[in-house]
Structures are given as structure tokens and as C-alpha cells.
């Protein structure tokens, strides 16, 4: 049985305090304790990227992050993007450009795209591809995802 430690962190703008096991991953904390199931477990080895969240603005693998090591950080999960049901431009772009298929990789993909555009608002296609290179998708073949990001950068969705 693992010891438990009290941590505090911000999740989608809300300050949270909770007890976590010392060996608890951020992915487990998000899904099991916060019931924020938008962040997905695809491989639990840090390869597929379905567990991508933003920690202090940077994309990280939630499955490779220990909750205890994320104390005093600001997390953004996929649930934190839309406000009052209104989608952010990147989300609208994904929808309108036809990016999601089975959807399982999309939480990570959208956040990786957001992180990219936050640091590089006018990327080239190559830069978009580089920025998304850590998110595996088995359905789409990636082209429409790139189109959605480029369209967002071009301001097509606000």
C-alpha cells in the first residue's frame, strides 16, 4: 500500500487540494479522482500521446507524470478549453474540417495543437507536423488535423 501525500494544484483554472498516492500518475489523478476522463490512456508508456495535458502551458504526458511531482503547477486538460459550452477556435476547426474520427486521440491532439499555436501562432505545415509528432492517430492519417490547425492559425474560426 502506498503512502498518501497532500498536494495542491490548479486544474482548468480551479485550485484543488487532494490526497494522492506517492506512485499515482497524473493520468490516474485526473481520471479517477477528478473524474476528468477526457484525458485518455492509450499505452501508459508515453508513446501514443493520448494522455497529453498542458502543465504550465507545456504539453506533457500525464501517464509519465507523478501527481506528487505536479504539485503547485497549473494544468489544462481538454475539459478546460471550452467555456460554457462554447468551443475554442481550435476545437471548432477540428470539427468543421472533419478531423475527428474515432476521437480517442483527439483530446491529446487538440491540446498539442493548442500548445503549438500558443507559442507559434503562424506555423508552417512542417512546424505543425513537428508539433504534433508526439500524438499518434490510427484513423485519420493526420492530414485533416494539419488542415484544422492551419485553418485556426489563419483565423478561419475566430
Amino acid at each position, binding site marked *: 500500500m502506498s503512502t498518501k501525500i497532500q498536494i495542491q494544484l490548479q486544474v482548468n483554472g480551479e485550485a484543488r487540494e487532494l490526497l494522492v498516492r506517492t506512485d499515482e500518475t497524473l493520468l490516474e489523478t485526473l481520471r479517477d479522482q477528478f473524474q476528468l476522463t477526457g484525458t485518455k490512456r492509450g499505452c501508459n508508456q508515453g508513446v501514443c500521446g493520448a494522455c497529453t495535458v498542458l502543465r504550465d502551458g507545456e504539453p506533457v504526458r500525464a501517464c509519465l507524470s507523478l501527481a506528487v511531482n505536479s504539485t503547485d503547477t497549473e494544468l489544462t486538460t481538454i475539459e478546460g478549453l471550452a467555456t460554457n459550452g462554447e468551443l475554442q477556435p481550435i476545437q471548432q476547426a477540428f470539427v468543421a474540417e472533419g478531423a*475527428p474520427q474515432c476521437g480517442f486521440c483527439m483530446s491529446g491532439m487538440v491540446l498539442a495543437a493548442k500548445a503549438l499555436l500558443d507559442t507559434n501562432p503562424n506555423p508552417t505545415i512542417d512546424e505543425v507536423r513537428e508539433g504534433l509528432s508526439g500524438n499518434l492517430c490510427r484513423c485519420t492519417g493526420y*492530414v485533416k488535423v494539419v488542415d484544422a490547425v492551419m485553418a485556426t492559425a489563419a483565423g478561419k474560426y475566430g
Partner: protein
Amino acid sequence: MNAMDDIIGSALPRIDSNEKVTGSAVYVDDLYRPHMLHAARLGSPYAHARILSCDVTTARALPGVKSVITAADLPDRNIGVAVDDEPILARGIVRYVGEPVAAVAADTLAIAQAALRLIEIEYQELPAVLDPVAALASDSPLVHENFADYDKRFSAPSDGNMLSLMEVATGDLETGWRESDIIIEGEFTTPAIHPQYIEPCGALAEVDGNGKVTVWSSTQSVFISQADVSRSLDLPLSKVRCIATRIGGGFGGKQGANEAVAAALAIATNRPVKLIMSREEDMISMRSRHAAIIRMKTGAKRDGTLVCRETEVIFDAGAYCDLSPFVPMYTVMMAQGPYRIPHLSNTARTVYTNRLRATSIRGFGTIQATFAGESQLDEIAHKLGIDPIDIRIKNAIRDGDKWFGSIPVPVASTVPCLEAIRNHPRWQSRHQQDAVKPGKRRGFGVCATVQRGSVFSASAQVRMSEDGSVTLTTAYVDIGSGSDTALAQICAAELGISIDQVNLVTPDSDGGVYDFGTAADRGTSQVGHEVQKAALKVREQLLEYAGEMLECAPQDLELRPRGKVGIKGVPQPELGFGDIAARGLYAGGGPIIGTHSSRVKDSPLDPEVTRSVGMDNVAMGAHFEFAAHAIEIEIDEATGQVTPVEGWCAIDVGRVINALGADGQIVGGFVQGVGTALLEELVWDDGRLANPSLMDYKIPGILDVPYDIHRMVLENPEPDTPWGARGMGDLCINGPVPAIANAITDAANVRLHDLPMTAERVLRLLIEK
């Protein structure tokens, strides 16, 4: 036709897109039920062994463990769609490394996994057979000694480890070889691969107070899953309900996803039980695509006319049959490719081995033979000095031809697909690019492919509500293809309403209709057909009721856009669908409900012309699908690395239902095909999977495939499907494999016969040259 079809072909976003970009889509692991337990399974360490004893007492005693079960706790029953050869927990014998032997339900997953380590099982190792050729030998250990006792539901002959033998032939091979000026012979191999859906398999089961089991599952077929639970636990189907959650990809690997084990634990504990595979477990114990050895011999005349093709395939089915027999059925029907070849013989032997079960993974029986056939055709073209596109056009099957001399092919699109690629501006200018960098070689390859769609039974129900909206039930599972949206579009188009007015019901075995499952490109064409027919019945009832209300004959009425009925030629009065439906309920003929169900009419084979074994003189499926692919690759001469640089996909979909959906399937299939061609292989080390992780088994990431993938969507309608639409899910994955093989030959004058076409394999050939 009165259907308003401007919704057909539009680029409507999927009806489920919003939930997928906000993280609110509910996949099975996102479900929580009160008092839920977590399950884990123990896998066999041996490829073939007898279970001598099993002691679970220590495991059961671990605090937090609520149940430990083995086959001893279950009825003596097997599952299997084609033959019931598979226990849900190994009974007496284990047949592959990782086969589940025991299962635990506990308060947490960590406790369940700890309990697994406390289970003591004594095995007696048995000789294992790990390759299908060895398995065919008469002295090979038998994977299923009691095969004769199983309920086998297909007629192809079985013998020893050979699960099925299927053959189709026409003409006469000896005549064919005599008439050929050139004959090419070769052997090709393709390895087992894993579908690598990003969401691993999983199920959540619970039992209600009346003993009815409900299972939520990441399954491609709620009815196969229902049958698995019912059969293995000896429960009547009326006591089992299966609901499909949102599915994170299937690709043919999720016909049933461990629901039965979850259900068994739920019954044993009387609590909900969730069982989710880890990536490693999924790769070790779920499903793979058949490894294959393809021996092919092709004969042609000097002018490039194909005369004769003989194909013999050995498929490795792994330890359990699953949907194996259906795979070679497609192989023997289509190994010759989309060409007129008068003398043909296709044979497929599907063989049990002590490895992971193989099944109808995307590329359903054709991807392996297509690799061989389209490679050999290029070899012939090269030897005869004929352009690869020309030789394909020359031999292509044409509208009205008969497949194998038996099956009419109303629409044969190989020629227009190839011409679409040839006429594409980027293809035309392909040699006008910048010079190849030193140390690199550039090559182009083409291929033409065929697939077959629709299988077994489907049904649909459309019910009109009092506000004019409809509820559509099909039980067909959208595994990511966009079928939910397409089917809703078909329904909406038939009735002239907006797609927002279609309430699509979650696939549910309690839902009132039946569907075989997501497979064989059957969604748009076959299930869509049922939707169309059901919607037409609703239309009839609307007109009948409206006729009563307007006091005129139904044939004088018409449907109008946005849910209205009026008299032809008379603008007013108009009735709204909702009013008609409401009146029906309380004052009229009853609820407006349209239902339709049917089984696909498989195509008969004329035994005079088409000789066959194991096919019941029938070719399963209802229509053919055609495509052509081309690709540009670059080879690094120093390492042999093959990089796909640009792609061309020409697919004839008959009629686009959803433009975004069709486009997504084409590109997605292309990229998956690149994975099969260059990267993917399940590697076994003496029966144990050596690469059960995404670290070690690579699928294409965005930087492994080009952005420049050109899509040419052709629309030559099929006669008897909704708006002429055909399926394409399986079709789009086959092309890149031989196209890349042909491109490598074009670039470096070496030919690979084995997949994947790794840098190592290419470099060896380059050095040998």
C-alpha cells in the same frame, strides 16, 4: 425518387464531433458504476501446455479481492463465430502465450494485479507449433485435438491443424501456362500485425436484481458480444444485454472485447466489474491480422495480356478460429486482382498454430494477396517493357464482366481510377521535380485493387416522433468511420429533414433491431440500404395518414423539404410530420414506425464455370469495390530507409454520402497501409511476443507519412445501394503496400517479397546487387 438528396455528399461535420473535441465522448474506460470493481486476467506463460493444477486460495485471501475465477468456475462452453473452439478462460490446455487462465475482481486494479501474482498454476509444457507450414505436417502437434467435437458452422474442409481449405478456379491452368509467353513465379510473406486502435479493448459488466447481465463494451458488434456472454456463461440471450460505448478504433480487431470474463466476475461478485486491457495485454491476447505465405505464378502474353494466375496462400490463424474462415474466402475470390484472367486458381489454407488468434483485420483477406499480385504484375510489365498503368488498363475488368465467369460486375472502376491518377497534375509533373539529392533514389509505384463489401444480416428501424423528428436504430457500430453520420444523413435525405432531427440510437442488443457488426465495408451500402428502406416505410405511413387527414389518396401527396406533406401541385394546405405522427398515436392508425431487415444476397458461383471448394458455390458479399493507388518514395542508399514522399489515391465510392467521412477514410487507410508496408510486424520469440508495446512496435506517426496525399473520389454508382454508394473501409488500406514495393523497384531495381519493407531488407538487396 422523391427523396431530397442535397444532404447527400455534403461535408457535414460528424454528429459526434463536439464530444470528441471536448473530451466528453464516453469510451468504456470512462464509465463508472457504483460499487464497481476492477478486473485483471492472468495469462499463460507457455505457448502450449496442459494445466495440471490451479490454486487460487492465496489470491482469494488477499484483502480487497472479491473474486478469483478459472475455467473450473464456468460452464464447459466455448465461444466462436465460425466454430466454438475458444473458452473464455483456458480449460485444461493453454494454446498461446498470454491466453487468459484466470481472472480477478478487486477493489482496485493494483490489488487485482497483485492477486494474479498469488495464483499458483502448475503446467506441463507440450510441444508447440509456431509456424503454419510446420503445423500442416502430418506429425505436427495438434492445436485442437478435439476439433471434431466442436460445432463447426462453415463447410470448408478441415484436417488436422488446417482449419479450412478454400479454392476457387476457372479455366484450365495447363492451357494457361501453354498460352503464356512469359511466366513469373514467386513467394511472398506478410507477418502478423496488430490493429493498434489507440483505445485498448475493454468491457464493463453488471448484473441487475433479476439476473440480467448488461455489458458496456468497446465492441464492433453488440450481437457477437452478446452471444459470447450468453454462450460462455450458459445464459439465455434474453438475459444478456450488450451496449456499445464510443469506440476508439476497431479495424476488425474488436468483434467481442472480453465481455464474458467481465460478466462472469460481475455475476460472481454481484457488483459491476470493469476489465480494461493494457496496451501490452491487448497486443498479446486480442487479435492480429493473419500472417501469410503467398505463392503466386502469373502468365502473360508478349503484348501484356494476362492469361493465367495461380495463387496458393497459407494463413496463420493462430490458436483460435475467431473470424478466420471468412478471411481466406475473400482471398480466393480476389487474389487475381481486378483483371480479366481466363485461367485462374486460388487456394487458401488457414492453419492453427500456438500463436495469437488472427482475424478479419482491415484489409480483409485481400491485403496479403494484393501485395503479391500487384508486385508480380509490375514484374511482368517491367520484363515486357510496358508502362505499369498501361498494363493494368489493358487487363482491367470492365463494366458488365463476370467475376470468375459467374458474378456480374455492373460497375468496374479500375480504368477510371487509374486514369484519374494518370491525369492528376502532380502525377503528370512528377519527373519535373528538383533533382534527387546525392545518396538518395526516387521511385514511383502504382497498383490497382479490388475489395468486396457487405455480409450477413442487417436491419434498421425509423420511428417518427410527435415533433417530426425521428429515432433511427440500426445497432451498427461506428468505430470511427463516420457511419453514424452517414446513416443519419441517408435517413434524413429520404425524409427531407435536417440531420439535426435524426436521433441515432446507441448500438444496443436490446434495441429492437439486429446487425452482424462493423466489418466488410458494409455500413453505408448494406446497413444504409436498410435505413433507406425503413425510412421509405415511414414515408408511406406519413402519406397514408396525411391522406386521411387531407381526405385524398396518398398517391396525390408528396413530401416537402423540412418535414411537410402536401398535395401535389397545391401549395396549401400542408401538414407537418409531427402533427401527422401525433394524430396517428391518438386518433389515427397508430405509431409511425418503419422497419426493414434482410440478409445480403450472396452471389452464386456457377459450378460449370467456377469450380470451388469450401465456398458452398457462393461468393459472400454483394458488390465489388475498386481503387488505384500510386506513391512516390525516396530511398536513402546508405541505410536503405524508404520514405513515402507523396501519395495518390483514386477510390470509386459510388456516391459520396459524407465528403469529410469519405476523405478521412481514404487518407486514414493510406497511412495505415504505409504502416503495414514499412513498419509493422508482431515479432515472436519462441512463442512469446517480443514487441508488445508501442515503443517496440511502430505505427506511422505524422512525420512518417507525407502531407501530400492526393485524393480522387470517383462516383460511378452501384445499382442497388443507397444513392449508389459503396463501402471503402477495407479497400483503402491495400493499395500503399504494393505501390511502395513497386516504387522501390522503380527507384533501385530491387524487389522485396517480404513485409515489412524495412530499411534493413532494402539495404541487403541494394548491397547484393
